């Protein structure tokens, strides 16, 4: 028989507000096994923990039930407290009477009644608890970073600087990501390439960093400290070890009609290409969809002219399998598709562009060599209209419900740069709110208004109508003047919402990392563990977790790196002892459990068994505790009921069911 102590927390008024704590204490005193029960304002506090320790000692308790907040919050705290007081840390059960009770109910009667039942269920479970000992597993001293943008580069550099090996997997032919496409950065107006390129070079040159570009993660297995990952290195058709990066092949390639991804399709590139001049590695890839050699079998010019003999049409995709202790996800973002927003005439006029396209237009390496031109006729625009929140803050199913966060600032930047370089150009910004929290951010926006006389209009645009003369008639509203505005513009720029890169969906599934309805990766705790995924060993870096600008991305990338380093620095990890166990007397060796185990943790052994005096050799299941993650799939699959899960045994769960239905 257990000797159980029950500790009911007030959590200030969080619990005590809707649960009569004293009544809970009295109600559970008579439950089987309960020796001691008391309440305290803050159980998780130092004093609260001491109180628990004292009670354990005084009443010789064998297990404790804490009625408090969610076990996801403080289970670890109370397990540690129990261990310090000399009882097994798995002899602790939490009754969640805050998130699942006091916070959702208003009526004290109802709340108290439910709290008592939840406590009873926890007591019933604890009565059947057995002491468990965690095992150990190894930590592979290498990290994987998925995504080679500024987030991935920063995380990789920080981890590598701490002395650990890092592999970066980037799906495009070069690292650099979105930041490499930007012209200038706010609020300092640094040239984006000027600050990014050195980082790219540093990452490429770092002895601890290994970069796989044009590669994708294909399969992930294993668990924290010991992941096994298959990386598909797509065929570049150019041998990286031979290529000198001279660029002659790109110059001579006769197929130059492919839309340039780097320039957002605003101009074209050759079929053999590096995405941009500073690409790392400076090794081109052949895009087989546009290459004449691959399409028709004729051509082969690049191979003929390559002095280094690097072009290899026979190259195949390669699968690389490596082990990692930690994985950082830094998959970044893209702008949303605008096909549902045709009132802005994006598909109808070349002079309606997204902000990211404008970055390319403003950039010296872009399609217009940095001259601000209309893409339709090459003329310099005299009137430019910016429209904010295109697809952001939309709860109508067309766009995204969230604020994309970066648009207010980059629009101020664009407006300012245009007014600075082309003072004759009028710039109007239609906005709903101007949101500029951040150091020197509001000052930056005010500069656009006060020094550069950018015309900010509070209101939205209803429709953009291309006119026969090629101009764009913008129909909007000025909510301050309460006037509908119809104005002619030569160019319209849409502050298009950003969304997580579509590839993150698949990666999240492989990592079993959870993802929210907008495809942003979920953090382990929104405030206190913002760079960790709930899946142990997986860390979040950059926009894959939520919209953020460059400084925030870099800061978060560093934070994710620190968390990864903290993991890699450990020699061993303690494993979850809540693993499956087969009762060898019941097991008939049928292999059903092994078939459902996602970890391959179950094997079979022939062992000598003494079954009620009958000695025989039987084939029985054996669970490898280091591999078992404790999902319990085998326990239900087992036809003879031999498999059970420690910490969540059949009897324990049934006891909880009984307690709730009593």
């Amino acid at each position, binding site marked *: 028989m257990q000797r159980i102590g029950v500790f009911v927390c007030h959590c200030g008024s969080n619990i005590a507000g809707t649960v009569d704590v004293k009544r809970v204490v009295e109600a559970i005193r008579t439950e089987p096994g309960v020796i001691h029960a008391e309440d305290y304002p803050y159980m998780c506090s130092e004093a609260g923990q001491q109180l628990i320790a004292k009670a354990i000692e005084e009443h010789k308790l064998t297990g404790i039930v804490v009625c408090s907040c969610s076990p996801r919050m403080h289970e670890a705290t109370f397990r540690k407290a129990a261990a310090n007081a000399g009882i097994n840390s798995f002899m602790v059960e939490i009754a969640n009477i805050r998130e699942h009770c006091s916070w959702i109910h208003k009526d004290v009667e109802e709340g108290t009644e439910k709290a008592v039942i939840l406590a009873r269920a926890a007591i019933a479970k604890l009565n059947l608890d057995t002491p468990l000992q965690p095992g150990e597993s190894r930590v592979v001293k290498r990290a994987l970073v998925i995504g080679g943008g500024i987030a991935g580069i920063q995380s990789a550099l920080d981890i590598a600087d701490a002395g650990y090996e890092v592999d970066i997997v980037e799906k495009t032919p070069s690292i650099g990501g979105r930041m490499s496409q930007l012209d200038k950065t706010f609020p300092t107006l640094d040239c984006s390439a000027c600050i990014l390129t050195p980082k790219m070079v540093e990452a490429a040159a770092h002895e601890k960093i290994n970069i796989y570009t044009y590669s994708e993660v294909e399969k992930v297995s294993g668990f924290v400290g010991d992941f096994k990952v298959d990386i598909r290195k797509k065929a570049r058709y150019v041998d990286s070890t031979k290529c000198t990066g001279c660029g002659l092949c790109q110059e001579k390639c006769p197929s130059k009609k492919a839309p340039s991804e780097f320039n957002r399709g605003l101009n074209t590139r050759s079929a053999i290409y590096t995405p941009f001049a500073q690409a790392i590695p400076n090794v081109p890839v052949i895009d087989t969809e546009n290459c004449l050699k691959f399409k028709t079998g004729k051509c082969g010019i690049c191979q003929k002219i390559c002095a280094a003999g690097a072009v290899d049409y026979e190259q195949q995709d390669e699968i690389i399998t490596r082990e990692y202790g930690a994985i950082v996800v830094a998959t970044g973002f893209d702008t949303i598709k605008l096909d549902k927003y045709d*009132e802005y005439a994006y598909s109808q006029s070349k002079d309606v562009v997204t902000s990211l396209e404008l970055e390319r237009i403003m950039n010296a390496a872009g399609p217009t060599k940095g001259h601000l031109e209309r893409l339709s006729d090459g003329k310099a625009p005299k009137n430019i209209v910016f429209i904010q929140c295109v697809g952001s803050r939309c709860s109508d199913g067309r766009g995204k419900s969230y604020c994309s966060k970066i648009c207010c600032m980059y629009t101020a930047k664009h407006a300012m740069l245009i007014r600075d370089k082309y003072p004759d150009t009028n710039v109007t910004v239609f906005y709903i709110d101007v949101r500029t929290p951040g150091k020197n951010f509001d000052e930056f926006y005010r500069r656009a208004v006060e020094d550069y006389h950018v015309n900010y209009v509070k209101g939205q645009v209803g429709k953009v109508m*291309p006119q026969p003369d090629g101009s764009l*008639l913008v129909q909007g509203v000025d909510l301050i003047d309460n006037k509908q505005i119809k104005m002619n513009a030569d160019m319209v720029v849409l502050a298009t919402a950003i969304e997580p890169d579509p590839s993150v969906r698949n990666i999240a599934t492989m990592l079993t990392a959870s993802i929210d309805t907008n495809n942003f990766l979920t953090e382990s705790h929104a405030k206190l563990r913002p760079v960790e995924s709930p899946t142990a060993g997986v860390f979040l870096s950059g926009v894959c977790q939520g919209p953020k600008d460059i400084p925030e991305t870099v800061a978060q990338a560093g934070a994710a790196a620190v968390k990864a380093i903290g993991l890699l620095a450990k020699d061993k990890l303690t494993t979850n002892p809540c693993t499956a166990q087969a009762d060898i007397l019941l097991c008939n060796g049928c292999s059903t459990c092994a078939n459902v185990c996602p970890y391959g943790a179950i094997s079979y052994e022939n062992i000598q068994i003494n079954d009620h005096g009958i000695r025989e050799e039987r084939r029985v299941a054996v669970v490898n505790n280091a591999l078992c993650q404790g999902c319990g799939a085998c326990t239900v699959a087992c036809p003879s009921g031999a498999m059970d899960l420690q910490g969540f045994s059949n009897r324990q769960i049934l006891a909880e069911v009984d307690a709730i239905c009593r």
Partner: protein
Amino acid sequence: MKYSYYPGCTLKTKAKDLDAYARVSAKALGFELEEVEDWQCCGGVYPLGKDEIATKLSSVRTLAQARDKGQELVTLCSACYNVVKRVNEDIKNDENVRTKANNYMQLETPYNGETNVLHFLEVLRDRIGFDELKKKVVNPLTGKKIGAYYGCLLLRPGSTLKFDDPENPKIIEDFIRAIGAEPVIYPMRNECCGGYISLKEKEMAANMCVSIEDNAAGFGAEMLITACPLCMYNLNKNSQGKLPVVYFTELLAEALGVKEEVK
């Protein structure tokens, strides 16, 4: 192929052409429009109030008849399409409307939104196919520059009607191409002509129709086509008369070589 057909009040009076040309064209294209019996006027505009039931019943009656015959219901007038289709969606999705409407109607089999509502243009696009239509054209209107005028009722609200992209539709343009002419795309083709407002606010309607006409003419349209008698009326009556306005079915009949069958 047989469809239930809901002509609506105006097609029996002021817009007989719209109806007649559609019928001969349908015959030429090998499908039949079977007029539902004892249909009543749809009311011209969809009653927006969530508590409006009685005003939706005439649509339900028509929809139920089509259901009983196991046919899809075709409309030709944009307004009827808008009203009947939205009522159908209400019956499908709004339990309150469904229950109350059925309580009123006392149909043999309660109506639960089973009927599929199609605009004549949708029949051309989704059942016949514009490529197929193109093959049947004997008298292509080559060289004609035609502006499609959609107005509001065919397109909005897009989430309910699912007719075409409400901001950048292309079904009538595809139709124009199919009959051999050249579509003129102009941004005001989905702006309102003024609708019923022209009864009491002539000037407002005139402003709107003039801008629409100017806009279409500016992009080089030589004529406008529409599917709505009210749009037709407003564009003819309240504009400067720069562009002729005809029903799309008239051009269809012409292209199919059956225009003369209509007396």
